[in-house]
């Protein structure tokens, strides 16, 4: 049964009530700022871009969720079959990618917390992490991280941001790695495979961070409503 202050709202639920500015960030990530991606269907791209212009991205929350999860799929087979994985799995992959250690008992809220802390440590440094842990402006930090990561998304430079030293080969993932003779010698064809089907951490990391921000904002709203109702009983 659903909680009064749920920690695990579905992505479509979160997106359907999010601010347009926050959804535009996700739309830009998915469509590579409207330029499109190999792994993105042109009709889907067109739909997203149209709704973005109309300021009605909330109405396609399920589509946005599906596309984010599709980017999280890290096999060529799944990309070809247009299969996507569960968002919890996407977030778990991202947490592991950022050297976090999510456990099977962790809910999505806890996994996103791991992601936020790992990302803060990795991209913002110790001081920012300390500031966040002592109640600093999480939304501000996430906005900054997402902006930085988006600049590198869709380019090879993104790999440095998302994979660090592990780079290309690591970003391709174990199941695809065997198809790659030499990571740095992939060239155009390899890049196409990479863009089309790799575990697109350059997209999923900022996307999950953005969703974590939305979830926390919604969680705060729910908790505020909860405390208001409690106080009204006095």
């Amino acid at each position, binding site marked *: 049964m659903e909680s009064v*202050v749920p920690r695990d709202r579905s992505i479509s639920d979160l997106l359907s009530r999010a601010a347009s500015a926050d959804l535009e960030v996700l739309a830009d990530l998915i469509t590579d700022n409207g330029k499109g991606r190999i792994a993105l269907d042109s009709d889907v791209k067109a739909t997203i871009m149209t709704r973005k212009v109309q300021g009605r991205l909330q109405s396609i929350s399920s589509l946005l969720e599906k596309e984010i999860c599709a980017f999280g799929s890290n096999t060529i087979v799944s990309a070809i079959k247009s299969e996507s994985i569960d968002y919890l799995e996407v977030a778990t992959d991202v947490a592991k990618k950022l050297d976090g250690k999510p456990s099977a008992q962790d809910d999505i809220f806890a996994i996103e917390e791991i992601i936020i802390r790992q990302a803060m440590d990795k991209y913002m440094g110790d001081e920012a992490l300390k500031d966040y842990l002592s109640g600093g402006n999480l939304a501000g930090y996430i906005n900054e991280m997402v902006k930085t990561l988006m600049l590198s998304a869709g380019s090879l430079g993104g790999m440095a941001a998302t994979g660090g030293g592990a780079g290309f080969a690591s970003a391709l993932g174990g199941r695809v790695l065997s198809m790659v003779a030499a990571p740095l010698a992939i060239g155009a064809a390899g890049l196409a495979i990479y863009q089309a089907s790799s575990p697109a951490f350059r997209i999923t990391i900022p996307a999950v961070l953005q969703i974590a921000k939305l979830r926390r904002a919604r969680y705060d709203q729910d908790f505020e409503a909860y405390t208001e109702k409690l106080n009204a009983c*006095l």
Partner: protein
Amino acid sequence: MFVNIDALVRSLPDIPDVLAKLHSGDYTLWGGVVRHSKGTEKAGQIVGHLLFPGDSGHVQESLKNLQSTLSSGLGSLQTGMDQVQQSMNVLQGLQSANLVMSGLNLAVTTVGFVIVCKKLDKISREMEKQSKTIAETWQLVSEAHERYLLADEARFRGLLRTAIQFCEEGDAQQLRILIGSFNEQYEFTRLLLERHSRMATSNVAFFDQVSLLQNRLVNLGLMMSHVQLKAGSHKYSRQSLTELATDIANLNASRVKALSNDRSVASTITHEQFAGLTRFLQDGTKMTPSLTYQADLIELEVKHPGLLQHATEAREILLIAA
């Protein structure tokens, strides 16, 4: 090291007087080459080369040498074979020893296994014994707890029954004696509720028990006020009601504070639970005006003795102004 000297045997070349001239010094032998000696007219020039023997005599001699060499080699081989056989014998001996050792190991392992099994059996028996002891202790504790709950309820019920009896009999003296027990029961219930009100989890997980205890607190407060009134302690009767109203309000405030400060508990509360919780809090809040009204009536009785009795018995609606 074996050296075949046949390879070093050479014949003189077929040159006239070659041996004589070698002896006389006209020729000099340089390795396998015969040269004109120094100081001669053709000094350094090659006269001829020594040859490998080519006649049958030499061949037969070489064959004999070869047979002899082979014989001595085969002899060595036989010696080697003997040595190998000896080694094999040693190895066989070692294998036998190894088998014995394996057998011993197996025996030791079996004995060890038996010992371990016995130890495990002993531990198992000990654990079973401990489990029985724990189960018995648990049963005793449960029984003690149950007896305590029953005793507590019996005290509460007994107190109410006694109070009702003395109220009906109008025995103010006996009622005064009961006031101490009422206060004790009231304070115990209030302290218990206060303790739970500060813990967000308790307000959710033990909601039914908390709700029951609060009902008990309210009934104790009302009964105590009535007993005080019957015993002629109007001031304390009124005070019991105002204290009850204050306690309920404080308990509610404490609950709301605890619940508002614990996000993790908030996330575990379902909509159904929350509806029950808010109803419970609202009931407490709604109770305050009624208790205050009752307290005011008692104060009116204190100021105007017999007024309440008159109002109760009157057949008309009376407007009473404090």
